[in-house]
C-alpha cells in the first residue's frame, strides 16, 4: 500500500511539473471533435445522431496517443528497471502508474466532454450516460493502452504499432459505450450497458497488470 501511494504520488508530481504537456491530449480532443462538424456537416440532426461516436472515437484516440508517456521517460533513463527491482509488488506499481496517468489524462477528458457535447448538439438526456460511460471506460482504455506501450517499449517505431495492437481490444468498449449513449437519447434503459462496462473494468483491473508486468520484462 505504501509502495502504491509512493509511486502514485511520484507520477502525479511528475505530471504536475509538466503541466503544459497535460494539455496536449485535451487540445487534441477539442480540435478533432470540432473537425467533424466542419468536415461532415453542421446539420443539427445528423450531428446529434453521430455525436456519441465522434466523442468516443476521439477520446479513444486522444488516450491512445498520450499513453506513450506512461513508461517512455522512465524507460529511457533506466528508472523503470530500477523501480521494477524494488521489493514492492510489481502489479501495484503498474496500477499506481495507470491510476496516475488516468487522473492526469482521462479525468480532464471527462470534464471537457460535456462542453464538447454542446458543440455536437447532443440532447440533454444523454449527458449522464456520456459522463458515466466515460468514467467507467476511460480507466479500461488506460489499462489496455499501457499493455500496448509495455509490449512495444523497446522498439523504435513502437508508437503506431502499440495503437495497432490495442485498438481491436478497444472495439467492444467503444461499441457498448456508444450504444449506451444512443439508448439514453431514446430514453431507453442503459443499466445493462453500464453493468457490462463495469464488468470489463473489473476484469481489466484484475488481469491486465499481470500481462503488463510480463510485457515489461520482455521489453527490458
Amino acid at each position, binding site marked *: 500500500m505504501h509502495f502504491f501511494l509512493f509511486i502514485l504520488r511520484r507520477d502525479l508530481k511528475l505530471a504536475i511539473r509538466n503541466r503544459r504537456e497535460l494539455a496536449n491530449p485535451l487540445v487534441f480532443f477539442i480540435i478533432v471533435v470540432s473537425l467533424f462538424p466542419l468536415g461532415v456537416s453542421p446539420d443539427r440532426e445528423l450531428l446529434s445522431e453521430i455525436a456519441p461516436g465522434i466523442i468516443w472515437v476521439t477520446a479513444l484516440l486522444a488516450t491512445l496517443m498520450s499513453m506513450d508517456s506512461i513508461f517512455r521517460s522512465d524507460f529511457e533513463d533506466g528508472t523503470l528497471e530500477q523501480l521494477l527491482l524494488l521489493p514492492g509488488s510489481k502489479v501495484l506499481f503498474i496500477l499506481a502508474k495507470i491510476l496516475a496517468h488516468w487522473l492526469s489524462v482521462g479525468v480532464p477528458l471527462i470534464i471537457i466532454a460535456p462542453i464538447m457535447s454542446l458543440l455536437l448538439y447532443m440532447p440533454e438526456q444523454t449527458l449522464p450516460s456520456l459522463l458515466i460511460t466515460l468514467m467507467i471506460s476511460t480507466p479500461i482504455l488506460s489499462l489496455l493502452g499501457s499493455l500496448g506501450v509495455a*509490449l512495444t517499449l523497446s522498439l523504435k517505431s513502437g508508437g503506431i*504499432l502499440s495503437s495497432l495492437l490495442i485498438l481491436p*481490444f478497444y472495439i467492444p468498449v467503444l461499441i457498448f459505450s456508444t450504444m449506451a449513449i444512443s439508448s439514453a437519447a431514446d430514453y431507453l434503459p442503459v443499466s445493462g450497458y453500464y453493468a457490462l462496462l463495469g464488468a470489463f473494468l473489473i476484469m481489466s483491473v484484475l488481469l491486465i497488470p499481470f500481462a503488463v508486468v510480463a*510485457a515489461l520484462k520482455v521489453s527490458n
Partner: protein
Amino acid sequence: MMQFIHKYGSPKHFYEWSGRWAKILTWATLVLMAAGLYQGLIVSPPDYQQSETVRIMYIHVPSAWLSMFTYMVMATSGIVALVWRIKVAEIVVGQCAIIGASFTVLALVTGMLWGKPMWGAYWVWDARLTSELVLLFLYVGVIAIYSAYEDPRTGAKAASILAIVGVVNIPIIHYSVEWWNTLHQGPTVTKFDSPSAPASMLIPLFIMFFAFKTYFFAILFARSRNELLMRERESSWVQQITKELK
C-alpha cells in the same frame, strides 16, 4: 510428462516426428478434401431457399471454425512458450498467427460472396461479422509484434502475451449469434438438442471440417519445420541435414 514435452518439443525431435506426420496429414487432407468437395458440391441437395449458393457453406463454415481453432492453438502455444520457454512453441505461435489470419480472411471473403446473393449486401455490421473482423485485427497485431523484434525469441514472448490477452474474443465470436439479434445464421450444429440441418448437408460439412483440420496441421508442421531450420541453422543437427542433402 514434462520430460515427454521437452523431448518431443525439442527442435531436433520435433523436426523428425513432424516430418513423418506432415506427410500422412497431407495425404489425409487430399483424400478428405476430394471426398468433402465431391459430396458438398455435387452430391448434396440444393437448399430449398438458397438453391445452389448454399454450397459456399462447405468452405465458409469450416474456415470460420478453423479461424477460432487456430487462435486457441496459438494461445495454448503461447502459454507453453511463456511458461516453459520451449522454442518450438514459440515458432508455432508465429506460424499459427499467419495461418489463422489466412483462415479468417477466407471466412470473411467467402462470407461476403455468400452474403451478396443472400442478403443483398457484401457486408453488414452485425455481431458475428464484426467480431470475426476484430479477430482478423488481433491476428494482424500478433503477426506485427512477432516480426517487430530483432531477436525472434523476444518477439515470440511479446506475441504470446498479446495472444493470451486476446483469447477473450473467441467466446464472444462464438456466442455472438446467440447474444445479439443478428442477420447471420444461428447455431446449427453445436447445440444441445439435435442439429437442425439434414444429414445430407451435415455429412459433407463434417468431412470438410476434418479436411480443413488435417490441412491446418499439415501446413502448420510444414511451415514450422521450415522456420525451425532457419532459426537453428547454426546447430549441428541442421548442419548434418544440409550436408546430407548436398
